[in-house]
């Protein structure tokens, strides 16, 4: 590659990263804004007040907590079921493998609006009330595919013969699981859980259809959009960002550790 071409490519990459982070910088910056009206959309001046009272808006805080609880429950279900599926698939190849993989990929490649409306459809047909339960089903479903495929990708490099070696050496199945299987799976399980958690926290469309009376963080923001955009929204979004970047860093760190070992 010519020198000028390489420079242009680097410049382009810098612009692309700038673009990727533009809205993120707005979110972080506006968490320090001192808005004059009810809409935190125009820069007025710097303040630390929003960060000193991040939970002052109680309706917003309740919505945020509901979202966290839902994300926790949905990611646990998705990681458990997805983990079992991924282990099952990685230990067996044969007829039907492709069909199961396709079944796993399809929820990811279906438009969210279709998942949302079809689930609502079924809940109406079955007379299931919409609320936390229906949300748990819906969120764990779309997280399941992500969790299973993330784990499956990680399990490609796992050496299952270690398990056989452990039992040959006289380890009980439980001991083999605790000392061999679980440590082999742990980084993948963590990655699947974190991905599911952030996907659940982020979802708007599926929640809008199936929430019933439950108000989640994105639903609150969408509802408030015409009335009020408080700086606390930006504070919470920044918190979520910091937490996920921290966890991502931890994940990368642990991945590096297992790679060396």
């Amino acid at each position, binding site marked *: *590659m010519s020198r000028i071409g390489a420079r242009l490519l680097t410049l382009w990459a810098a612009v692309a990263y700038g673009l990727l982070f533009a809205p993120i910088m707005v*979110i972080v910056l506006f968490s320090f804004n001192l808005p004059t009206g009810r809409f935190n959309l125009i820069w007025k001046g710097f303040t630390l007040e929003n960060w000193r009272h991040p939970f002052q808006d109680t309706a917003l805080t309740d919505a945020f907590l509901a979202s966290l609880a839902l994300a926790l429950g949905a990611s646990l279900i998705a990681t458990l079921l997805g983990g079992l599926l991924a282990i*099952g698939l990685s230990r067996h190849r044969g007829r039907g493998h492709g069909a199961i993989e396709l079944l796993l*990929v399809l929820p990811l490649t279906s438009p969210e609006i*279709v998942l949302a409306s*079809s689930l609502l459809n079924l809940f109406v047909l079955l007379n299931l009330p919409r609320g936390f339960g229906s949300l748990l089903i819906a969120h764990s479903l779309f997280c399941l595919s992500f969790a299973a495929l993330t784990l499956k990708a990680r399990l490609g490099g796992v050496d299952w013969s270690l398990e056989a070696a452990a039992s040959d050496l006289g380890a009980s199945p439980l001991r083999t699981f605790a000392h061999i299987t679980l440590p082999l799976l742990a980084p993948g399980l963590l990655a699947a859980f974190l991905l599911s958690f952030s996907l659940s926290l982020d979802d708007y469309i599926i929640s809008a259809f199936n929430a019933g009376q439950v108000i989640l963080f994105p639903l609150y923001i969408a509802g408030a959009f015409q009335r009020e955009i408080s700086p606390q929204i930006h504070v919470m*979004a920044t918190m*979520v960002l910091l937490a996920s*970047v921290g966890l991502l860093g931890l994940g990368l760190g642990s991945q590096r550790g297992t790679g060396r070992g």
Partner: protein
Amino acid sequence: MNASPRSPAAEARPRWPWGLLAPGLLWLLLWFVWPLAALLPMSLSEPRDRFSLAVAFTGRLANYGEVIQQYAPTLLRSLQMAGLATLIALLIAYPLACWISFRGGRFKGMLLGLVVVPFFTSYLVRTIAWTTLLADQGPVLAVLRALGLAGGLESIGVLSDGRLLNTAAAVVIGLAYNMLPYLVLPLVVSLESIDSQLLEAAADLLAGGFGTFSRVIWPLSLPGLTAGVVLSLIPGMGDVVNPQFLGGPNDRMIGNAIQNLVLVQRQVPKAAALALLLMTLMTMAVLAQVRRHGSRELTAS
């Protein structure tokens, strides 16, 4: 991925490990396959009354004719907007993916992580941040005016009355932004597989950067490219958030139409018909991609 050496454990247990697979498969059948299957009878039903979501199955095929007639323009506009957004996102993502793959060196993992990090904040808050960026007094318009581009963009219909927010252009920008990781990740997976020795050989034999690109890099990046395009077009086509928050009343897309049919008009059967049409279109695209290139790049991200 293909034909990995079979482990001894698998050979000892040739039967399917149903104990491991059953719970997850059951969950998928119950809450993915069943709801989709239930869309079909729903799409042939009629609402019982105007106040509840209750329906009666009447085998009404006319629902399809009516939604096609009513929403064909919306469907076409969605395809145009999502297509344009994919093209714009590709112009940004392709060089970025090349730079990460060929120049990233040992920071490759971190550079890829940085592409994903912005998407760890709330989708809605990110979209609201875009309303700040695209606002009448916002930085994007200020830069365009300073560069003297505002007049030209107005004449080709990107800006309307000097505004960007609440236009179709804003929706396309928002859609394109959200497509970037879906394009960069599969592209990097494809570009990664290009051997550096192959690149050196190509540079020697084909002489020149363009030859290397057109004869080696571009063809080998195609699986990632098409996977990325499929992964971008699908959420782009069905998106509800960007048209709702960045667009004007005339920039609504097919997702907004379905949402409106269900949550406002209570026309659940028609919404089901429209959702099935959309799903059929999208599944055909996915199957075509899987048939041609396998599912490696699709699942990579």
